[in-house]
């Protein structure tokens, strides 16, 4: 693999709230290479969206970000504001879950694309318009020239998401950060958007970080996956390795809890308990209270990320019990 | 239990002081508010008369305290009746909607076209001056604001799933409206009513000043100010202290209203 485009080292995000500090992300490491698709999965409160927003420093002022976010070797967290602004929307672009709130409702789509082109390219007016038409065509919006004058409310949900992707692509970014881009969409539209993103990754050689809660989306869309729980990285590796033989009790339980093609109407194997609360610090492994493999050490000591194979690492004391292929549970 | 914020404490403190004034005026300042002291006509504030005296030598502190019971009564009655009428109408309009809502809309348009005070003065002018007629006038005009607030809340709550669940469970309309929707629709109204009390004290004082509300010799802050207006240049304290009392009462109700808004906020 070539040198990583983005390297996140020991990322931590702490929110100051009236009820005390909330450790939303804690000691996170991952890398993304050019042309690579990384999936970050987790349920609510796992810190996956916060992680994504911390990369281009989009978090609110009550968040304290620690660690390093290396963009081509340069720490984005230490970058002066002016340099960062040129990077954001230029080299690093972002797509959000709710296109309706991410798009400006009172500006035509064409003008919103134009803004990005003005900020990040030296094209003249005529060339910018041509580029905007080209971009809408690229994301599969028909009769693009006419669509440029339309407002977000005149677009359907899927079309809005395409428009937002077009805006993100305007400055030809090398990295696209996508925060649950298809969660608000229907399956058939989700399918179209995911296929569009994959086509763009292939054609433009872009890197993609895809945050989602849907394991199926990861399985079909990503090269590598990072599984998060309560702000921490549980497991990371190629999709095949992680989903084929998980080495973290949480990943394992999550995969087993999904309704697969196993016997219909058989009881599922749920994860007991409720999703974690991150407003109090946890001493050992955050998953231990819900874990069927938990040992005494899990409650006191925090497991370290350990390599199991080339590019497959997990932070779990019970990892040696796991790793067997999930026959039947996943198919 | 939720924490009571500092502004709420402050507001409640002021209101408690006013209540004490109204309930036991003799306890705070034993001087008789109606006793003439011919030795001290329009006397400036002193140890004997901290707020000074008026042209008849009546003690202004005692009169300001005595007026508080009338003004609190105004605050209460000019809010309670519009609140009850407005809530019932708002519930009906919000729940049934349709033509009822259309009629209500026109009625609201009609009422809000006139400034509140002008409309109240017009009605009092027809009915004749006095506190009771003032309450009737305020109720005639004031219910609209409450009904609009309740109507809006009911419209939101009506479409929520817990109301749908109650309907699927076959509950009666009365049960759904009064037991399920009303408690969830009441918060903005209660908050508004407390702030409205501040406005009503101002209104009562204004009408008292104009001679349309409380009638002399009833001590009422607006009446006191009206009494003192001829002596404003020579004895400003006659108008000043009742004015301060009005401001203080207004502040107390406003702070309490804001605090109440936070306290009643429902957790989702």
């Amino acid at each position: 693999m070539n040198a990583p485009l983005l390297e996140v080292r020991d990322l931590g995000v702490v929110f100051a709230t009236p009820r005390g500090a909330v450790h939303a992300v804690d000691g996170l490491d991952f890398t993304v290479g050019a042309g690579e698709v990384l999936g970050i999965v987790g349920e609510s409160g796992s810190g996956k969206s916060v992680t994504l927003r911390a990369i281009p420093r989009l978090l609110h002022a009550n968040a304290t970000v620690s660690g390093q976010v290396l963009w081509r070797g340069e720490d984005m967290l230490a970058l002066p504001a002016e340099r960062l602004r040129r990077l954001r929307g230029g080299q690093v672009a972002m797509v959000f879950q709710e296109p309706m709130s991410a798009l400006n409702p009172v500006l035509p789509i064409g003008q919103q694309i134009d803004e990005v082109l003005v900020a990040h390219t030296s094209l003249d007016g005529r060339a910018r318009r041509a580029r905007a038409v080209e971009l809408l065509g690229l994301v599969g919006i028909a009769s693009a020239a006419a669509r440029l004058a339309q407002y977000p409310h005149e677009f359907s949900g899927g079309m809005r998401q395409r428009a937002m992707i077009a805006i993100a692509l305007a400055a030809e970014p090398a990295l696209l950060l996508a925060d649950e881009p298809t969660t608000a969409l229907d399956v058939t539209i989700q399918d179209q958007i995911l296929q569009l993103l994959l086509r763009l990754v292939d054609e433009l050689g872009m890197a993609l970080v895809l945050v989602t809660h849907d394991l199926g989306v990861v399985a079909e869309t990503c090269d590598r996956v990072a599984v998060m729980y309560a702000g921490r990285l549980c497991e990371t590796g190629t999709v095949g390795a992680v989903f084929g033989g998980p080495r973290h009790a949480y990943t394992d339980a999550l995969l087993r809890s999904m309704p697969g093609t196993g016997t219909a109407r058989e009881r599922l194997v749920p994860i007991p308990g409720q999703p974690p609360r991150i407003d109090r610090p946890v001493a050992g492994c955050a998953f231990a209270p819900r874990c069927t493999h938990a040992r005494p050490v899990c409650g006191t000591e925090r497991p370290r990320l350990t390599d199991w194979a080339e590019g497959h690492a997990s932070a779990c004391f019970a990892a040696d019990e796991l790793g067997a292929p999930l026959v039947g549970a996943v198919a | 239990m939720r924490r009571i914020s500092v502004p709420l404490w402050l507001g409640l403190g002021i209101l408690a002081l006013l209540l004490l004034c109204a309930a036991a005026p003799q306890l705070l300042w034993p001087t008789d508010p109606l006793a003439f002291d011919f030795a001290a006509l329009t006397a400036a504030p002193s140890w004997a008369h901290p707020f000074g005296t008026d042209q008849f030598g009546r003690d202004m502190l005692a009169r300001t305290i005595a007026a508080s019971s009338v003004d609190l009564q105004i605050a209460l009655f000019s809010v309670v009746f519009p609140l009850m009428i407005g809530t019932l109408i708002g519930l009906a309009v919000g729940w049934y909607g349709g033509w009822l809502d259309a009629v209500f809309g026109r009625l609201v348009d009609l009422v809000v076209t006139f400034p509140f005070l002008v409309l109240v003065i017009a009605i009092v002018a027809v009915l004749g001056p006095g506190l009771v007629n003032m309450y009737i006038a305020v109720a005639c005009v004031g219910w609209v604001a409450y009904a609009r607030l309740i109507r809006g809340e009911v419209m939101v709550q009506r479409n929520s799933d817990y109301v749908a669940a109650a309907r699927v469970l076959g509950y009666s309309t009365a049960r759904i409206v009064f037991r399920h929707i009303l408690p969830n629709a009441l918060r903005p109204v209660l908050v508004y009513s407390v702030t409205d009390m501040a406005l009503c004290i101002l209104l009562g004082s204004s009408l008292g000043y104009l001679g349309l509300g409380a009638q002399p010799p009833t001590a009422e802050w607006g009446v006191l100010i009206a009494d003192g207006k001829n002596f404003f240049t020579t004895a400003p304290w006659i108008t000043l202290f009742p004015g301060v009392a009005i401001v203080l009462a207004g502040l107390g109700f406003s702070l309490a209203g804001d605090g109440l808004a936070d306290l009643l906020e429902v957790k989702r």
Partner: protein
Amino acid sequence: MTPPLLEADALTKHFPGRRGLLDMLRRRERPVVRAVEALSLDVRAGETLGIVGESGCGKSTLARCLVRLHRPDAGVLRFRGTDVDALSEADRRRFNRQVQMVFQDPYSSLNPRMTVRAVLAEALAVHKVVPPDQIEGRVAALLDLVHLSRDAAERYPHEFSGGQRQRIGIARALAVEPSVLIADEPVSALDVSVQAQIVNLFLELQERLGLTLVFITHDLRLVRHLAHRVAVMYLGRIVETGPTAELFAAPRHPYTQGLLRAVPQMAAGQGRVRRAAAITGGLPSPLAPPPGCSFHPRCPIAEPACSTAVPALAARGGAWPVACRLAG
């Protein structure tokens, strides 16, 4: 074959759409959202019927028609053979004791100002399910049934997580001892790790109480796991209905085929899959559904004739009915 417990016969539900001032001035007719269009369906005692479709296909409107939250504009809803519309007010309540609903949003479906005890006790008291002195015991029994601890009774909804709230909603529906439960997307607002708990609860309750379940969802994986039979909806109509396993193995309608292809598969070790999108285009507006088969603008095998007549839901030489003139 057992006779249907709940039966929809050509149900239709339209909603008035919005009309702007300009439309009024131009004397345009008020637009109509055709949420459910002449839809027929039967639910048999003891089974789980899955209803799948994308947002805007009318499945939630159908759910609300089945519990009589909506009064249909046309068509008949029958429960045990009786027309529900013809029932008196008191009998309508008796119908609703039999047919209950579980809602999608665990947050808005519980009254935030009532404790769990108040919610359950109210249902028990209003319908006189048990004498007043036994209400306390029944509340505890209901909490046991949905696996909530008994001290939950004293608490308010905001003190619970989404999954626990959904359990409270299920307990509320079960309080009146219904025979049919209409569940509208009951797990889609929950975290993946909690969904399985609620799915298991449904399976368990069905076994213990002999409940009939109508499970409405956009999640095909869930339907495949839970439902004996499935009905696929598109723009207010059922396009295909049949036994779940067989239908999912060999879907007959092009929409069902595309829908199944669009669902991300978990197949292990697969990684990135590049292919053409399963179904192109978006859902047409229910304000102006396409003429003929409403799927034809997105259909890969559509012929000119598809845009003229609405295809009926019929067997067409197969084992289960399908509404496609090209299926056979």
